[in-house]
């Protein structure tokens, strides 16, 4: 047992400024304020980082390392910076932001995995994309890119294939935009760089054996007198229906029992963050739809919150826009949980009947999204300072094509019926169909256990954390939008197994319906009020500085860490993806379980690969 589970975290000082003052006193020459304009938190000497982390976690109660990421300040100090955001869970409050800097040539930062196990995947990601070596990391290898990849693409001097220009908009599009196709630039030609001295003849593919490092294979068959079997390596995925996409689990089995499990991801990696840094601030909004494509409305909201925070009071969101945002976010939560429960049951073997019942209800919500935002899934609805358009008066269509069937419904009546009747009915029906079933109970109860301390240590968030009995919900712990004035409970379940995660999602849907019932009168009161604050402009400039904006997405804490240099494009755009970080404890949860349960455990975490791989 590592030390993160043993010591008691009791905060000595509660408010953030006095904590920082006390820490500066404690480490007089290692901790200093980050005085750059628009920045917050402290800069810690890299050598003292583990000690600092141990103190803030053990003595000041910052037991939850939410986000860890790196920034390349090429041309602005020429250093790499690792940024940490630590929270107190479950008490909540603003995060303690601390940073460590290192040079670009030989970047080394001490690893925090032994103190915050949740740093595991995030440090690997920073190593993968920035080349920062985290000294002491137990398994520091690439996570999103393949093992033979040359270079570290998030560095500012890296140019991807089809690179055209540093930032959008590209000059070739207007006023003399003679069209060409990007792939006409041969990807094996001048747009891809090979390492010095590379020839195809002396290229050796990365062996699978290297890949399996740390999987505890290669056991002597005759060595174990009780059970004479070799360990067997089974690859679940990447193409397997249970993985909900392209995701691979390398499972070392002893008989039917899982000895170790390592998630392998990145099959859907497109370097969302690099695209984000080339994009304008507005241009990123539709890209956030593609992260967790089940909950695009909630992704939009988190990104809008982040940029609004960076604008520092230059934009204000009108009340009606906030009401609509919460309406959309809570409907999205129901969509996600319906989907998640449906597909968990698929993983358990109830082939598609519960999933289709859930999807049918989801369709009604998507119809509303389509009529309001213009798209069922890729909503692109929130704007920086409001929303795209007000709710339409009627959900109606025009027959533009042959064979079109036309619908015409009053929007408010539709919403009322949806919220007061249809959604509660569907949730109750799912409850009746599934909750008491003996098959589900025997498959789920006591399987995939994640104790509360472990959930916090591994930076699990959302339903995964709350099903382990930790009452931490960002809507209450760090309220945003109009959540402070809404009545709802933070649901928890005590046991942290698959069944509790399933029940928690039902509970959360009921709480969402409760919130939506409070939203309806507010929608009526504010009818006709503005939905956008300030002047609509297609290109905005964001003042220099940084911000970490986060929201309680259906899958967990979705955070955006953005750095602006004052221009029309983000200097850094990082996504703290709940689907990605919630996979950190997957190996621990599966240890000692049967191989058939691995599928159900993964289903209960509820990941979307678009967000995991980014």
């Amino acid at each position, binding site marked *: 047992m590592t030390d993160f589970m043993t010591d008691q975290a009791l905060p000595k000082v509660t408010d953030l400024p006095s904590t920082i003052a006390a820490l500066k006193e404690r480490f007089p020459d290692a901790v200093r304020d980050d005085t750059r304009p628009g920045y917050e938190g402290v800069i810690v000497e890299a050598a003292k980082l583990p000690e600092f982390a141990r103190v803030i976690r053990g003595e000041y109660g910052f037991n939850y390392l939410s986000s860890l990421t790196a920034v390349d300040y090429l041309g602005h100090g020429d250093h790499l910076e690792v940024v940490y955001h630590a929270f107190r869970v479950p008490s909540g409050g603003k995060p303690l932001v601390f940073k460590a800097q290192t040079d670009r040539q030989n970047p080394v930062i001490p690893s925090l995995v032994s103190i915050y196990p949740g740093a595991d995947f995030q440090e690997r990601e920073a190593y993968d994309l920035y080349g920062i070596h985290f000294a002491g990391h137990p398994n520091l290898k690439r996570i999103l890119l393949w093992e033979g990849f040359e270079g570290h693409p998030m560095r500012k001097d890296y140019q991807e294939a089809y690179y055209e220009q540093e930032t959008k908009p590209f000059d070739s599009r*207007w006023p003399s935009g*003679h*069209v060409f196709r990007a792939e006409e630039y041969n990807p094996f030609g001048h747009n891809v760089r090979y390492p010095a001295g590379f020839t195809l003849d002396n290229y050796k593919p990365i062996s699978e054996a290297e890949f399996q490092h740390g999987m505890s294979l290669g056991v002597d068959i005759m060595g174990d007198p009780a059970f004479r079997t070799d360990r067997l390596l089974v690859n679940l995925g990447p193409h397997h229906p249970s993985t909900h996409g392209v995701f691979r689990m390398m499972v070392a089995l002893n008989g039917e029992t899982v000895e170790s499990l390592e998630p392998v991801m990145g099959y859907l990696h497109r370097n969302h963050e690099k695209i984000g840094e080339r*994009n304008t601030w507005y241009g990123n909004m539709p890209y956030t739809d593609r992260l967790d494509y089940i909950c695009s409305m909630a992704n939009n909201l988190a990104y809008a919150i982040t940029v609004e925070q960076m604008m520092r009071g230059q934009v204000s969101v009108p009340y009606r826009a906030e009401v609509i945002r919460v309406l959309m976010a809570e409907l999205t939560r129901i969509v996600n949980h319906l989907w998640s429960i449906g597909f968990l049951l698929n993983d358990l073997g109830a082939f598609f009947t519960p999933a289709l019942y859930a999807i049918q209800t989801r369709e009604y919500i998507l119809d509303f999204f*389509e009529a309001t935002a213009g798209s069922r899934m890729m909503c*692109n609805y929130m704007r920086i300072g409001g929303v795209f358009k007000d709710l339409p008066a009627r959900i109606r269509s*025009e027959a533009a094509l042959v*064979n079109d*069937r036309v*619908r015409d419904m009053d929007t408010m009546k539709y919403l009322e019926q949806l919220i007061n009747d249809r959604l509660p009915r569907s949730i109750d029906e799912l409850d009746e169909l599934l909750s008491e079933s003996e098959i589900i109970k025997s498959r789920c109860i006591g399987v995939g256990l994640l104790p509360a301390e472990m959930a916090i240590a591994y930076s699990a968030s959302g339903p995964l954390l709350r099903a382990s009995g930790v009452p931490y919900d960002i809507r209450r712990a760090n309220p945003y939008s109009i959540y402070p004035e809404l009545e709802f409970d933070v649901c928890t379940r005590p046991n942290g197994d698959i069944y509790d995660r399933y029940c928690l999602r039902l509970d959360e849907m009921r709480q969402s319906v409760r919130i939506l019932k409070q939203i309806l009168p507010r929608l009526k009161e504010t009818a006709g009020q503005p939905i956008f604050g300030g002047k609509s402009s297609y290109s905005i400039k964001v003042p220099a500085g940084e911000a970490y904006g986060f929201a309680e997405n259906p899958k967990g804490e979705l955070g955006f860490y953005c750095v602006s240099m004052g221009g029309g494009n983000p200097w850094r755009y990082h996504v703290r993806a709940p689907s990605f970080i919630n996979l950190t404890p997957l190996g621990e949860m599966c240890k000692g379980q049967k191989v058939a349960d691995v599928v159900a455990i993964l289903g209960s975490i509820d990941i979307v690969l678009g967000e995991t791989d980014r």
Partner: protein
Amino acid sequence: MYGSGILKGLGVTFRHLITTFIDDIQWLGRKRDVEVFQQKQSLANRGLVTVEYPDEKLAVPERFRFTPFLVTYNHDDPDYPGKDWCTSCGICAKVCPPQCIWIVRGTDPNTGRPKPEPEQFYIDIDICMNCGYCAEYCPFDAIKMDHNYELASYDRTSAHIYDKARLSREIRYWQSIAPTTAAEEQAARGGYDHTDVQKARKKAGLEPSRPGPYATKPAEPEPAPAAAAVAEPPAAAPPVEAAKPEPAPKAEAAAPSAADDETPPHPGWVKRGRRWIDPNAKVEPVRRKRQT
């Protein structure tokens, strides 16, 4: 009792089964009636809600967005037949997140100075992410999001870069697919006409905007995707400005290259006219919507 939970769950499934049949019997023979359809699609419905695509389709709501198209005056407009609304200001190309819009700004041949008309306008619809920013930020209501989502074709390299002729649709098409939005935009413009036209008319001492024609029905039903590659304007009144069709993508879309002529996309397919057809496929007639 052990097993009662399963029985309870099976009860729910059974209820679903029964309601579906009750629904079917209740609406026996009237499945395609408009009132029945509205009832079945409503939130109160407890039976099946499925729509038999592609025999019948759910019409998309007004705000639905797919790929963009360019607005022009109607071709039978007495004053400005087929004139582009686009002024090639380039805002759509700048705001486009995946940068799929390419505009060549027009120049006046006499003075050599830029004029507010696009010479060429391309959209790579493979790259378009259907976000709708171009339509949202266009100051002239000149680019709108289309509702036609059936864009599959056999050849993406030649058929998926839309040129100006392929993108242009008459304003009456926009009025037909999104009447409420079109009316709102018209009110915001201060009349039916394009804002620049209104300014010019004002200068010339005319009424700023003419009362526009309001089409209530689509001008013509959308043809099948393969035939849709043919540009929209009818041959009767090709406008001078929009008359320069870009030859390359359009011509190739209409007539596949020589290699395609020889090799069927699937073994055993035969050629009918320009298209490859599976001779064994069961072809069902397209059922038309019953008029009420």
